[in-house]
């Protein structure tokens, strides 16, 4: 019978203790369970649905829990053309999401207005929201959305999570420890 052996970490030798940076642990938790807010506004939403379905399977990256309530979401995926009629509603939904939160602008329309150089269309959602990742394409293929999601995960893993969330406590700790 084959014996399973932990190569990186052996609890018998090292005890039930893991040493890491707090930020790294927090970011690891965050980036592997990004719950998206599916802000489907146009045809990009079809690709977003395809990304969630079995062939591309966004749950491989821990982002399969699409919540239609902004209160339970971490990342807003703006998928589609943002008209001025919808723009303030999108902003309001973003404001209802709890911190920490991120935004993916999916496709040409959400990034720049795309082919709609029109009086009725907002020329890029970054005029209203702080966008973390832009994904090109009209619409982008599901692989592109997954690549964008992985880019966002990379970005999250480099963020000073603890300092962002508890700036005063972090400052105090720094004073005590130095």
């Amino acid at each position, binding site marked *: 019978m084959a014996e399973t052996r932990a190569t990186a970490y052996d609890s018998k030798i090292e005890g039930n203790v893991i040493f890491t940076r707090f930020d790294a642990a927090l970011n690891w938790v965050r980036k592997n369970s990004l719950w998206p807010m599916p802000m489907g506004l146009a045809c990009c939403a079809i690709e977003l649905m395809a990304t969630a379905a079995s062939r591309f399977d966004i749950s491989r990256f821990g982002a399969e829990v699409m919540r239609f309530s902004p209160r339970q979401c971490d990342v807003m995926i703006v998928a589609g053309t943002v008209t001025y*009629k919808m*723009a303030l509603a999108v902003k309001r939904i973003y404001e209802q999401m709890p911190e920490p939160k991120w935004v993916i602008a999916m496709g040409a329309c959400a990034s720049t207005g795309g082919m709609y150089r029109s*009086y009725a269309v907002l*020329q890029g959602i970054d005029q209203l929201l702080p966008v973390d990742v832009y994904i090109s394409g009209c619409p982008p293929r599901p692989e592109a959305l997954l690549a964008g999601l992985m880019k966002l995960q990379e970005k999250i893993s480099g963020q000073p999570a603890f300092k962002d969330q508890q700036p005063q406590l972090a400052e105090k700790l720094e004073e005590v420890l130095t």
Partner: protein
Amino acid sequence: MVPAGGAPALQCHNQMTSQEAIESLDKSFDSKIQDKTEFRGETTFTIAAENLREIAKFCRDELSFDYLLDITSIDNFGEEPRFEIVYHLYSMPYAAHLRLKLKVSEEVGALDTISDIWPTADWHEREIYDMMGIKFNGHPDLRRILMWDGYPFFPLRKDFPLAGLPSDMPDVAFTKITPLEGGPFVTIPSTAGSKDREPRARPPQL
């Protein structure tokens, strides 16, 4: 409200052809018809705005034009009267088209609704109000339909710039001017492939 439909009219005008129906409209409203044109078997009557409801009712009840296909508004900017409204009627029993045209000046800017005669006119009239700013007297629910409440402009008017206009109240009517450098981005209507017809920056050749 009388339900829109040609069933009673169909019975009494069973033998009438579409041509006869249109001639009977011509006879019955002779003084109220300003102009009549025919093109490829379709007839267009130009009428006055105040006679619209009367003629529309006659078309539906007596001539069995039971289907209002569309209402169009045209902005003849620089001409007087400025606006033109076109009603496209269709008769299911006769398979015939009829067009009614009328003019509305900018000072009046309003005409009677026909949404009680053909209920489908309700949203068509809302669209014209939204895009052209022409009001419809007696309309049950005259709100904007495509743009949002509080949007201050009428985008299909000729004096509205292609790039749009900024709004004074960004909280209610959040809208900005669209960058159109190198534009306008237009297509060329032809039978060429989609690659050649793709909208590109084609400044007007002066």
